[in-house]
C-alpha cells in the first residue's frame, strides 16, 4: 500500500460506524454469530464498519474470537460455564 492510499484510508470515515460503546456492548453477540456462520456483516453493518476502523475494538474482536475458538470442544466450554457459575454462586473461590 502506498502513502496516498494509506492516508486516504485513514481519513475515510463510514457514516454507518456505530462507535465504540455500541460495538463493545454487542461484541459477544457479534462474535458468536461469526463463529456460527450467519452473514453477520449484513446483519450488523454498523458494527462491522466500526471494527474495521477502530484499532482497539478490532483488537478486542480478534481477541474474543481467538478465545472462543481456542476453548475448543463443547465439553471445554461446558466446563468453563460450570466453573464460572460455581464461582458466581459462591460455591468456590
Amino acid at each position, binding site marked *: 500500500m502506498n502513502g496516498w492510499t494509506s492516508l486516504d484510508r485513514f481519513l475515510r470515515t463510514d457514516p454507518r460506524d456505530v462507535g465504540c*460503546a455500541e460495538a463493545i456492548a454487542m461484541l459477544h453477540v457479534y462474535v458468536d454469530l461469526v463463529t456460527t456462520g450467519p452473514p453477520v456483516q449484513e446483519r450488523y453493518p454498523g458494527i462491522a464498519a466500526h471494527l474495521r476502523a477502530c484499532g482497539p475494538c478490532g483488537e478486542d474482536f480478534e*481477541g474474543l474470537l481467538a478465545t472462543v475458538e481456542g476453548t475448543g470442544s463443547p465439553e471445554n466450554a461446558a466446563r468453563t460455564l460450570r466453573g464460572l457459575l460455581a*464461582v458466581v454462586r459462591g460455591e468456590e473461590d
Partner: protein
Amino acid sequence: MLVRAARREVARRGPHQQITGPELEDLAYQAAGDALLAIMQKIGQFRGESRFTTWAYKFVVFEVSAKIGRHFWRNPARSPDAEDWDRLPDRFGFDPARGSEWRDLLGAVRRAVETELTPRQREVFVAIVLNDVPLDALVVKLGSNRDAIYKTMFDARRKLRAALAANGYLNDEKSRRS
C-alpha cells in the same frame, strides 16, 4: 479458566506490547481477577443473546485491553504531546525517494490540523498519529473513555479529509496513484 483465557490473550498481544515473562503472567492474573469481579457484578445483565461463555470471556478481553493501555505509560520516555511532523511520511508509508510528490500534500495535512481542528481534536491527532500512542493508552492519559477519544478522532479525520478534498489534495484519482 479465566486465567487461562487471560494468559492466552496477553500472550497474543504481548509481543506487540513488549510485555514478557513474569510481567505478562502478572498482567494475566490481574485481568482474570478483575474480569471475574465484572462478571459477578453484571451477571444480571446477561440476556442470553450469546453463549454465556462468550459473554464472560468478553470481560477478560476488555480487562487485558485496559491493562495493556495502562502498561504503555510505564516507559517514562513516552509523551503524548511532542509534535514531530517529520514522522508523518513514515507513518503513512510515503516513499522518501519520492518526496517531491507528497511533500506538498503532507504540508496541507499539517495546515489543516492546525487550522481546522479543535484543540482537543488536535491533541488527540498529535498523540495517536504523530506520537503513535495507542488509543487505549491515550484514554488513560486523558482520563477519558474509548468511545469519546474514538469519536474525537473520527470527527478530526472527517474534517481533515474535507479540507484536503476542498483544496484539491485528496480525490479518488490521487488516492489510486502509485
